[in-house]
């Protein structure tokens, strides 16, 4: 990151999207309740301060473990140290869900696009075992047998 990016900017310049914040705030309140504008702004400021606090502590945890990158486990430890241990379960759940969500994305694995039924896959597996056995027996010919569902004995 170019250091010049931060010149002239203070922490106060970076805030959180008010619309999203307001939705979260409203979630906790009865529908007829209003929120004073300056109260809303203060809640957003508090949230930014919360990030600063947890971020700073996460960095300390990270350094103490002699790591260079702040990782999820550092954040979880920081939450515990700072007295927000109650959040850990939900926060970890969100992290796990995120991992699952990104796994489902189209660019997955070498076998994407290859579709087989289970029987086809099993037959293919048996054929590959037979070929491997043949190679092991130094090229002794192995007949491809139809009763290839015999399991391998140890």
């Amino acid at each position: 990151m170019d250091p010049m990016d931060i010149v002239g900017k203070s922490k106060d310049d970076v805030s959180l999207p008010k619309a999203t914040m307001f939705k979260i705030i409203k979630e906790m309140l009865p529908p007829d309740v209003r929120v004073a504008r300056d109260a809303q702004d203060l809640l957003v400021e508090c949230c930014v301060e919360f990030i600063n606090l947890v971020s700073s502590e996460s960095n300390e945890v990270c350094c103490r473990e002699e790591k260079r990158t702040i990782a999820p486990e550092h954040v979880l430890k920081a939450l515990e140290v700072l007295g927000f241990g109650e959040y850990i379960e939900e926060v970890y759940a969100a992290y796990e869900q995120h991992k699952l969500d990104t796994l489902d994305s189209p660019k997955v694995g070498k076998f994407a696009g290859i579709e087989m039924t289970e029987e086809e896959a099993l037959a293919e597996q048996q054929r590959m075992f037979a070929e491997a056995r043949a190679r092991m027996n130094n090229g002794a010919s192995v007949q491809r047998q139809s009763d290839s569902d015999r399991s391998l004995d140890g």
Partner: protein
Amino acid sequence: MAKADFKNHSLPSARIKKIMKADEDVRRIAAETPVLFSRACEMFILELTCRSWAYAEENKRRRLQKNDIAQAITRTDVFDFLVYIVPEEDLREEMNANDSLLYYYVPPHVGLWARS
């Protein structure tokens, strides 16, 4: 505190990273880390709002005000770090209101289990 049913209000990762990076000591951040912050922030805001609202209700108001948030901050230990960002006049009001809450430490009786 009852667990809220979280709808998906994720805060943008890029914004969270920017806030984190404003601290010069913070160097590298794993890509998935902002996801944890997003959920933690959501829980934090819900808790702070809930506690603030409790005070407004106590005072029979249907409008959440700045001093409600100030009182939530003074009444909750884990929110001590926020004391510096609350306007002093709001804080002073709440501190005065809490003057009557004094805690005394009572030391255990000395010598109760004295060995003969």
